């Protein structure tokens, strides 16, 4: 706004007087708008969505698709900005510290927000955010090679008390999948060696190449290898079975009390005003509920589940408490 006023003054010949006048006007407008009218004309400038992972990844493409859909409902453009680093914690920190005016939002997945604060010294917790919309989720799962002796989860659980040491791989320390594996092996007491990889696809490659015995990761990312007949998913961490994996049981069905999922959601800094959040929630709910977006999340191997501001925040807080407990157990 200020730039515009300056620009028009410079072209119009009488700089000093007009400039002063416009500065006065601008300052007044800014002051007034800051106090009351924030929500009325929201958004009056471009909205930025911070994605805490690199361009091109699953979370990034989902966030960009959501932003594209939501742009239809705003008069202003939405820019997606990648602030990657340290498993998403760098971008999450930036989002938590952003000005709570609704112009800086956060699109993330569970790892950085609900597990990292329990294992790393990061300057934020889930309490630094408030919800706008939850768009999708994916469970975790464990998988083995097709030629593995463990045909079912029960075969695997039968290793309890034996001397077999299982080489378990996963997508990185402190993430959702690592935490779930930790919880599973703690509960069953099965012996293991823990081999972290940088990213789920490398863990899958290591499993297929026979370098590890078992991996934890999202079942969607394993689909290709499952269809190729190379690996077998033993169990899912969702509450119910998935249509895409017929016959694969959940941990809960088999008597192992592990239910946890990776969620994708749009959040705002904690102090964002209610009226602004209401406007954002309405638009992004519409965007997330559109057929195009739902179809997109399915292609990204996520389970579509749209939650409103209140529900997603409740879910995030519950997840955070759950993961905190598992991580503390060591």
């Amino acid at each position, binding site marked *: 706004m200020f730039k515009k006023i300056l620009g028009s003054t410079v072209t119009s010949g009488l700089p000093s007087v007009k400039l002063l006048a416009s500065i006065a006007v601008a300052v007044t407008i800014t002051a007034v708008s800051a106090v009351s009218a924030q929500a009325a004309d929201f958004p009056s400038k471009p909205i930025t969505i911070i994605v805490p992972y*690199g*361009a*091109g*990844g*699953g979370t*990034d*493409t989902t966030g*960009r*698709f959501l932003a*594209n859909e939501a742009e239809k409902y705003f008069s202003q453009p939405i820019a997606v*900005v*990648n*602030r*990657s*680093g*340290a*498993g998403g*914690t*760098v971008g999450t*920190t*930036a989002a938590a510290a952003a000005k709570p005016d609704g112009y800086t939002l956060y699109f993330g997945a569970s790892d950085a927000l609900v597990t990292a604060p329990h*294992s*790393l*010294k*990061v*300057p934020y917790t889930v309490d630094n955010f408030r919800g706008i919309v939850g768009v999708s989720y994916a469970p975790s799962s464990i998988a083995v090679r097709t030629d593995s002796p463990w045909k079912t989860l029960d075969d695997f659980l039968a290793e309890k008390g034996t001397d077999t040491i299982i*080489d378990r791989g996963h997508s*990185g*320390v*402190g993430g959702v999948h690592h935490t779930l594996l930790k919880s599973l092996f703690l509960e069953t007491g099965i012996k293991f*060696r*823990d*081999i*972290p*990889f*940088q*990213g789920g*696809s*490398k863990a*899958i*490659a*290591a499993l*297929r*190449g*026979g*370098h*590890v015995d078992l991996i934890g990761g999202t079942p969607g990312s394993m*689909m*290709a*290898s499952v*269809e*190729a007949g190379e690996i077998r998913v033993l169990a899912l961490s969702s509450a119910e079975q998935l249509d895409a994996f017929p016959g694969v049981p959940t941990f809960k069905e088999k008597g192992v009390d592990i239910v946890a999922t990776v969620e994708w959601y749009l959040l705002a800094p904690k102090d964002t005003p209610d009226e602004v959040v209401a406007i954002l929630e309405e638009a992004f709910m519409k965007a997330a509920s559109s057929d195009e977006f739902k179809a*997109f999340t399915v*292609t*990204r*191997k996520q389970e579509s589940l749209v939650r409103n501001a209140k529900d997603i925040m409740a879910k995030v807080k519950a997840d955070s408490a759950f993961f905190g407990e598992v991580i503390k157990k060591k």
Partner: protein
Amino acid sequence: MFENFLYAISVVFLWENIVLIIVGTAIGMVFGALPGLTVTLAVTLVLPFTFDLSPESGIILLTGVYCSGTYAGSISAILINTPGTPSSAATAWDGYPLTQKGRSLEALSVGLHASVIGGLISAVALIFFAPMLAKTALAFGPPERFALTFFGLTIIARVSGVSLSKGLISALFGLLIASVGVDPIMGVPRFSFNTFYLYGGVGMIEVFIGIFAIAEIFNQIGKRAVMAQHSKSDSQTKTIRWKEIVPHYWTVVKSSVIGIIIGVVPGTGGSIASFIAYDEAKRSSKEPELFGKGSLEGIAAAESANNGVTAATLIPTLTLGIPGNTVAAIFLGALLIHGLTPGPQLFVNQGGLMYTIMVSFIMANIVMYFQGRLALKWFDKIVNIPSSILLPIILTMCLVGAYTISNSLNGVIVALIFGCVGYAMIKFEYPSAPMVIAIILGGMVEESMRQSLILSDGSPMIFLTRPLSLAFFVLTIFVTFSPMVIKQWKKRRNGGGQA
């Protein structure tokens, strides 16, 4: 197979697809040539536009961006000593000295030709060897990956220049920089000095912008006497011709094959390929002393290798569903969006699409060649701008690049700090090449080594009992010590003859 091939040609030569390739390569060239704007970012920004296209057209557009983006990293490496992509780091070692000697157009010409040939060979390899090579990719577990990256590290000894101890110190600092950030195995932060930004490690591109470009700006500003440092481009070469590349055809073929082999291993990428190819070219060159001071052969090796990676990296992506690098991961996403699941059956069920990918890689490289011929003459004019105007332009590009890579000023601070480090290295004659190699490979070396040792309960024998890993270590020893042995042997023979 033949009808699939015909189908692919009929698709790629639809006029709208030709337009897409032209647009895609142009976008890639701009992003690749500007430091800080990466190929990955270009492909990501283009991706949403492919949603409305057919799978074939979408892939064609992405291919254009990918090929020329990888190539164009060499343009800024040669002209302003800043690799636009990490995989062009080796190109800067010889390209920039040539620019300083006024032979920039020759360097650009060799870079373009080598890239195009590397890309073409890689495209052919994709279709003919994909299923076969895919199996090799799976054989690379942690020990094999360690052996490969360790092999890459030993190149340091041979790019150190006059003083081996300075080269080693430079490399050790590179390793130290690579160790900053959250540890890959334990997840504890290292050397963060209570700055949260450093949890994510020191950004690679930011460091390169500092060490290469900002250090060079300081260097130029400090030189009182000679201000017009860049001598004008007045070499005999006025146009871009095939002739330049002909003497290096064997280097180009060899380097392309190195690029393909390394491209197949997921998660290694173009930079290690270009280092290994560069090293091999230097080893077998008739003029190894020119390397690092302005060798056209060095550029040919580095550029054909990193473009040799382009199509090859799609082999594990398409056949196994395991992306070889970040760009391949986006390709994977693009296929998934169109309901195509990668895997061995993709070649059976979607033969037409597979051939379309190959043909579009070939087309992209051809279009890129002609675009490059047109654009390079203009790019080359950059060198003729007086340095009082050029330096502020480069500086602004550096600041913008360092900022946009992570969208924060922290990146700019890192670039400025490493600008000072780089300047000190120039002044005290420490080579920067070893540091760059160490920064790129350091993380991979440590991660794979520790993964291996966890698997073996601490026994280093794991590196020697696995055939592929053992083979790489034997190769490492051979390449490291054979020059010395040959030298000794020649000396002895000559001495014997005289006596």
